[in-house]
Each structure stands twice: as C-alpha cells, then as structure tokens.
C-alpha cells in the first residue's frame, strides 16, 4: 500500500505537483493517468525518495522510503528505461542492484529469463532497442520480488507482443495480491490494464475512481445507422420514439437503444440500411476532455493556496457538458 498525503512539489514559482492525496491499494492494478507534463514522473520520483517534496508525505506500508533498509525487497520500480550505464552488461547492471540489497546471484538470471533477455544477458545495453531497455528496467523492478511495483510508462517503445506481455504481467502481479501502480499518458492503455484510475492534470488530482465507474460515467454508447434514404429512416425512427442526431459521414446516431430494435424498425418501414453498428465514445476523448478542462481552468486563474485537491473550487467542471462526471469522482 502506498499513501500520499498532500504531496506537493514546487520548482521556484512553478507548481509541478499540487497537494496530491490518494492511496494505492494492493491486489489491483492502479493506473496513474495524465497528459505528458502532468507531474506523473515527479510524483513517482517523490514516492521513491529521489525528489524531496516541498510539502506533504508519502508512506510505503506506513514508512518513509528512506526508512526501508533494503527497499528492493519491498518496492520495485521501473523509472525511465535509460537508468542504465550503456557500457555495463545487463547481467552486471542487475548484479550491482541485487548485491546492494542482498539478493542472491541466482535471482539475476531468473529475472533476465523472465523478461526475455536471457540471450543478451552479457551484452552491453548500448545496442539495446527501446523495448529491450524497457525489459531490463522491468527486470530490475522484479529483482527483489517486491510486494509493491511501480512502472512509469512501461509499454513505451514495446512492440505489440511486448505490450501484451506487460499487460498480462501486471494483471498477474496484482492477482498475486501485490500493489501495482502504473503510469501512462494513454487512456486506451489504462482501459485494458487498470482496475482503478487516478487521473492528474497540471499536477492536480482530477479523478480517483474505479475503472468501471470511470467508463460508466464517461462513455456514451450509441448506435450508428447509415442509409441511402436518411430522411425516411429518421422519420421512421422518430415515429417509433427514437431521437436521432447527425453522425459521421451523413450517418445517424441514436442514443440508448438496442441495435436490433432499430434494425427491426428500419425493416418494418422498408428502409435500406448500409450500416447498423453499436458504438462507444472513446475513453480517450473523455480523458482528453477531463484534462483539457484542468488546463483551461488553471490557465484562467491560479487557485488560492490550500484549495482542495480535485478542484472542487469555483469554475471547476465549467464547460463540461454533463459527460465530465468522472471529474466529480475526485473526492477520494
């Protein structure tokens, strides 16, 4: 379990992270989402005691990171893939980390095999692809078999097979009861891996909600219909009590109805259909909307110090068209 309490980081007058308060729980994958520059990496560095918070605190199972005697047994972290000396072989890199925490030599070979780098264990990372570097970083996170894992943009540079492997691994680690905290700037990636979602923008907490709730609140499902006779189709649907909205490429969109029902209405009216497809608004859009609002909000006025995280202040949610419900899930 990782607990953040009012975590704040300022660089001079610029606030990178503002009063973040949330808890990362064991047994699930918690996604840490925000656009580039939102403060995700800064937050993760503070969690590892690398950067000193301006205010607030982080507790790892109740303790400060630097109170952990041999932290690799408790927390494994993938920071940026390049935290590796390009001239030191993969095996020696892991040995350096392992020895410092009393991790046996055998484990180095194990994690190298686990991440699929067994064949290049004695090669210098100088020649590694981005994906191989990422795998080496993941190997170092797994080295101490820790209960808590943190991954900063783990799928960066991985090929589709590698992405699938990382997703499966994270789900597996969470299923074993571990705490898995993973950052990404891609909503689509999170939707596939995370059970719980923490969204930040401009260093502020925007949402702390379960993935299901986020999807429920932020995704609109509708049916897209396309016909060579759109007017007749619209009239037939209206007669059956379905409101239509113009969709992409001259199609019609109908909210809150079953595709099958709509197809039957069209058939009964003798209207030819070229397309009848159930659709979901992308979570990516919902996420963009959410973070975009935070950018706009902060662009207009700086909130007074001590404003509650999650942006409950005046102006929050303005411009949202009712789909920004996830933003109000930020009380956690």
């Amino acid at each position, binding site marked *: 379990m990782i607990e953040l309490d009012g975590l704040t980081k300022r660089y001079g007058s610029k606030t990178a992270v503002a009063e973040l308060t949330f808890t990362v729980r064991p047994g699930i994958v918690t996604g840490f989402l925000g656009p580039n520059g939102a403060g995700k990496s800064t937050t993760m*560095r503070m969690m*590892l*005691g*690398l*950067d*000193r918070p301006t205010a607030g605190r982080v507790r790892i199972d109740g303790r400060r*990171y*630097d109170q*952990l*005697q*041999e*932290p*690799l047994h408790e*927390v494994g*972290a993938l*920071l*940026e893939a*390049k*935290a*590796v*000396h*390009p*001239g*030191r*072989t993969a095996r*020696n*890199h892991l*040995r*350096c*980390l*392992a*020895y*410092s*925490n*009393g991790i046996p030599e055998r484990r180095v070979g194990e994690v190298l095999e686990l991440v699929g780098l067994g064949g290049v264990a004695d090669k210098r990372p100088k020649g590694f692809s981005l994906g191989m570097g990422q795998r080496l970083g993941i190997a*170092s996170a797994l080295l101490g078999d820790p209960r808590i894992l943190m991954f900063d943009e783990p799928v960066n540079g991985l090929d589709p097979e590698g992405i699938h492997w990382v997703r499966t691994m994270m789900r597996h680690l969470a299923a074993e009861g571990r705490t898995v905290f993973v950052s990404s700037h891609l909503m689509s990636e999170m939707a596939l891996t995370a059970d719980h979602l923490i969204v930040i923008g401009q260093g502020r907490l925007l949402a702390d909600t379960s993935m299901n709730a986020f999807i429920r609140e932020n995704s609109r499902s509708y049916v897209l219909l396309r016909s060579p006779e759109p007017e007749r189709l619209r009239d037939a649907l209206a007669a059956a009590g379905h409101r239509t909205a113009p969709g992409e490429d001259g199609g019609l969109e109908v909210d809150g109805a079953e595709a099958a029902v709509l197809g039957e209405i069209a058939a009964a009216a003798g209207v030819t259909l070229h397309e009848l497809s159930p659709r979901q608004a992308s979570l990516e859009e919902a996420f963009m909307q959410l973070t975009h609002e935070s950018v706009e909000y902060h662009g207009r006025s700086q909130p007074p110090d001590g404003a509650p995280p999650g942006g409950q202040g005046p102006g929050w949610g303005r411009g949202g068209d009712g789909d920004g419900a996830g933003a109000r899930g930020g009380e956690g």
Partner: protein
Amino acid sequence: MARNGRVLHSEWTKIRSVRSTVWTLAAALVVTVGLGVLICLLVRNTYDDLSPTDRATFDATMTSFAGMTLGQLAMIAFGILVISNEYSTGMIRASLAAVPQRGTLMAAKVAVATLLALVVGMITAFAAYFPGQAVLGSGLASGIGDPGVLRAVVGAGLYMTLIAVFAMGVTWVLRSPMLAFGILIPFFFMISGILSAVSATRKLSYWLPDQAGSMIMSVVAPSQERPYGPWGGMAVMAAWVVAALLAGYLTLRRRDA
C-alpha cells in the same frame, strides 16, 4: 554492518564492470611512467648544460615523477567518471532506489574508488621511480634508502590517490561530466601552473591542492619560502579533499536526484 558490506560489494561490481575504469587508470600509469622515464632520459643527456645552481638543487627523485603533470589528468578523469557515470546515464536513480541512505551510497562508492586509486597510485609511483633512476644513471640517481626518498615515492602514490578523490568530491557537486572536466582539467593543467609562475600570485598558489600536495615528492628542499614541509603540504591537500567531499555530500543530501 552487513548492509555496508553489501553496498560495498555492489559498488565494487559497478566499478569493475565498466571500461572507463580500466582505461583511465591504465592511462594514469602508462603516461606517468612513460613520460617520467622520457624526461629522466632528457635530463641525463642535458645535465652538463645546467647552471651550477640548478645542479645544486637537482632532485633526482622528483624528476622521475615529472610525468605526473600529465598522468594526474587521467587520475582526475577516473575520479570524474566514476561519479558522473551515475548521473549521465540516469543510473543514480536506480542506485538511490536500491540504497536510499545517501550517505551510505556515497561512502561506499568513494571508498571503493579510493582504494582502487590508491593501489594504482602506489604501483605507478614505484613503477615511475625505479626506471627513472635507472635511466638517470649512478652519477645522478637517488637510492630508495636515501633520506626522504621512500617518503617521496609513497607520497607520490598518495598524491595520485588524493587528486582522484578530490575530483570525486567536486563531481558529486557538479554531476555533469562535461562540467567537471571543464572545470577540473583547466584548473590543474593551466590555472595552477599560471598562478605559480607569476610572482605576484606565487604565494597564493602554494595553497592550491596540487601545489601543496606535490611537495611530498621533493627530496631536495626547494629554495622557496614554502610555509609547510612535505607532510604539511599533504595535509593542505587533504583538507581540500575533505572540503570537496563534504560539499559533495551536502549536495547529494539536499538535491533531487
């Protein structure tokens, strides 16, 4: 205690698993010995042309260490790279995540690198002394048993070690290899030499780490008015090293990694 041993083991693995360690230390040895022998050869062949005063103050022992002017730069490079490697590669974050007790990490890294520099420094000092004297020949050469000579040779090894540790301390502060090279190399290669060559600043230059520390290598007392003896000079240099390490430690403690 077991913890410290583990961190030392880790640092030892780090230092011996990169090539820069080998080539900087090898360069320090080869350049110091090679250049020293060459200069001894040159001195022997031109000794008869020297003025009587120069002959009176001729220091055979110190002449074998003449290559150190250049060789010390490789030692400085070793000191810079052993620290800056962590920062230029981002490895420091992995290192501190593994050993969040920053003082422990720094102490282990400096201890391992210092020990290695000491071993290479001592080998270099003895390897420069004997061939140098052999080249100078029986008329000019000193013997290892002569008064002050063993002190000078051991002192030369210490000097090379301390100059590397000084570079380590400074690099903990500067972090960037470019910055560290850009400041330390001109400092020792030019500024120190210029200050000691100009009479107005000569007295000031006595207190620079390399000027003070190199006194340990002279056997024939220099005519100048140095306010300290060989070990006093070494103490001045050691004070610089301690100050650099302290500044490095404070930087490491306070700044974000």
